[in-house]
């Protein structure tokens, strides 16, 4: 309720000053003068419209547009209408840095947000630091909280992968088994899984018996399945990119009806993929981490339905326009939540223009409690201003009848770890 009040306040003021004109112009004039007077807040969005991240990019854009519409209908941010400028980065780090330049210097954006792929974040963040433009990533990478980036880069809309992974270990060890073989892509996203899950499962008295890193150029996986030790109780898999369907299909052919380990995967493998796709029957009964359950859980909060309606997603996590068009549901909420985080910080800091950018980042660092609501449909979060990272609860779902059914939700505390950096002590 509080946010609604603050965002309506300027429009009330505007109505008072514009009373005379409003009386003549009629009811339509009540809203319009506000937009005409205030220069819009321009937000740059670094979008993966092409390249390997294109599936995600499409949904990130839809989600951000939906949040934008909702925010503008409710009076904008700090009384100013909001615009998003999208620029495609081709999911490429070099182009990413150029896009930061373009959004800042050419489009004159107030800040930049929306990046998902870690290598694009790594390539772009130095430039954002040089330009002194707030750069809010939606990436779930551990790059922000590890201290590798800078004072201008924050990740307020999604829990990082280290926290996600660590919070899974107790449940996996308690319910599936303690001897784990890991399949992960041989790049940064995979290394986070390799390093942090191995540590977390050992803390639970478990053990990773084999780590199999698949090179990024691989398109066929069967031959690597032979490297799975026989003692394996749990097969932990996290693959991304177009090869995942093949991975699962081949895994199914390999084990077939014979004895097989329990499967635990990260939904990243199946983002934008229908779990009822032919060939994925093998996943029936297996478990997945989900940040935001794709299939609307029975106990979903009040904001869930509104969020789905706004973005245009049905209760199965597919587009309302096309049931075959499955969302990247466990990631895209971050674009939505980041936009509301921006709104909160802009309004708290009284941000008026690029000269206030430092003030804006300080206001962001001062935010800690992010309660559940339409601003955060994935769930409540705690923002750590020192590490620039948000922490939220995670979910585990089981595939039943080709559908993901949520079976467990972690607490926020299960995903916490010691700070590795204090960005607030760094200079701007």
């Amino acid at each position, binding site marked *: 309720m509080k946010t609604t009040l603050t965002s309506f306040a300027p429009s009330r003021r505007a109505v008072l000053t514009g009373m005379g004109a409003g009386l003549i112009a009629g009811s339509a004039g009540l809203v319009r003068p506000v937009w005409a007077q205030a220069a819009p807040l321009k937000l740059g969005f670094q979008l993966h419209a092409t390249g390997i991240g294109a*599936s995600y990019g*499409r949904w990130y854009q839809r989600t951000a547009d939906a949040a934008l519409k909702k925010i503008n209908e409710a009076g904008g941010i700090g009384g100013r209408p909001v615009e998003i400028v999208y620029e495609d980065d081709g999911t490429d780090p070099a182009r990413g840095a150029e896009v930061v330049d373009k959004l800042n210097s050419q489009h004159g954006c107030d800040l930049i947000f929306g990046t998902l792929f870690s290598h694009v974040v790594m390539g772009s963040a130095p430039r954002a630091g040089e330009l002194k433009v707030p750069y809010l990533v939606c990436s779930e990478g551990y790059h922000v909280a590890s201290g590798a980036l800078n004072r201008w880069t924050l990740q307020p809309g999604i829990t990082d992968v280290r926290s996600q992974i660590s919070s899974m270990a107790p449940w996996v060890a308690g319910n599936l088994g303690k001897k784990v073989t890991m399949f992960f892509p041989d790049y940064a996203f995979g290394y986070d899984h390799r390093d942090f899950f191995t540590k977390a499962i050992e803390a639970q008295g478990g053990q990773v018996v084999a780590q199999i*890193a698949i090179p990024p150029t691989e398109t066929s996986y*069967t031959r690597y*399945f032979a490297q799975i030790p026989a003692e394996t109780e749990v097969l932990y898999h996290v693959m991304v990119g177009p090869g995942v369907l093949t991975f699962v299909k081949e895994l199914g*052919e*390999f084990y077939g*009806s014979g004895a097989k380990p329990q499967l635990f995967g990260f939904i990243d493998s199946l983002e934008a993929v229908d779990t009822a796709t*032919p060939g994925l029957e093998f996943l029936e009964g297996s478990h997945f981490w989900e940040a935001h359950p794709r299939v609307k859980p029975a106990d979903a909060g009040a904001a869930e339905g509104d969020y789905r309606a706004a973005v245009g997603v049905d209760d199965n996590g597919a587009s309302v326009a096309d049931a075959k068009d499955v969302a990247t549901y466990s990631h895209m909420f971050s674009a939505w939540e980041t936009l509301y985080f921006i709104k909160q910080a802009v309004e708290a800091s009284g941000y008026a223009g690029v000269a206030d950018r430092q003030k804006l980042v300080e206001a962001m660092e001062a935010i800690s409690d992010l309660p559940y609501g339409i601003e955060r449909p994935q769930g409540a979060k705690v923002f750590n201003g020192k590490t620039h990272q948000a922490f939220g609860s995670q979910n585990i779902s089981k595939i039943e009848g080709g559908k993901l059914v949520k079976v467990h939700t972690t607490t926020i505390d299960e995903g916490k770890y010691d700070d590795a950096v204090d960005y607030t002590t760094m200079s701007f």
Partner: protein
Amino acid sequence: MSFGPFLLLALMEGLVSAAVLALMASGLSLVFGVMRVVNVAHGAFFMTGAVLAWFVAGHVPGPPVWGWLAALVVVPPMVGLMAAAVDTLVLKRLEYEPEAVIVATIGLLYILEQAALIGFGPDARPVAAPFSLRLQLPWFGYSGYKLFVVAAAGLVLLALWLVMTRTRFGLVMRATQVDRTTARAFGINVDRVYAGTFGLGAALAAVAAVLVVPTTQVHYLMGGDPLLLSFITVIIGGLGSLRGTLVAALIIGLSDGVISMFWAPTLSKIIATLLVALVLVFRPQGLFGAKA
């Protein structure tokens, strides 16, 4: 898993990749051999074939086998005709100058990928296999369809060999390969032979795509790696030698599988890549090519 079954699995996997590679590479080898140009868009033709297969299979009602068969019949000619048109409209005007053709086909690659991104979208999508047979061996299970792919690829290659050695079209093509000027002097329409060759090469990539796509999935960036591998196969096999291409595909497919038994996946890739490079360095004319 113990060594024996492990090796068996690696060999079976290697055989499947060799079969697909042989199809892809034979198309490239034809173009290379007859026209002496490098077609960088060969992988994009493969991808286009896969996308069209997805489209055709999705529009044929009934069990998956009909959709897949329809794709197998319809898609390769479509891709072949498209490639022949590209040859006539672009490559011919470049007079098949090698560097210009490389740039033009890079351009074509961008165009085809972007067209697929717009028309097909960024997601990976499956095409159902015509039948779902799983072989359960004592140690592991294996896809029956994959073994079918090996057989089918063998048949297509046999057909190609018959066309090349037993038909007039094949004769004309080989004549053009040996000496373009003399072929022209003997009244061969070299332009049409080139268009036909380029089309046939692309059609072979499309056949490979239709065969392979039920074991993997369609994606608009799927053409890159097959392109690289088929380049290597063609060179190791010796330019324009169909037999060499086939043997090279077998060597590359099988060694890739076997090497991956001993080292971590990425290290295996490094070793396999360096091995292939060294073969080329010390036998630059390929295994079967005549000394230049």
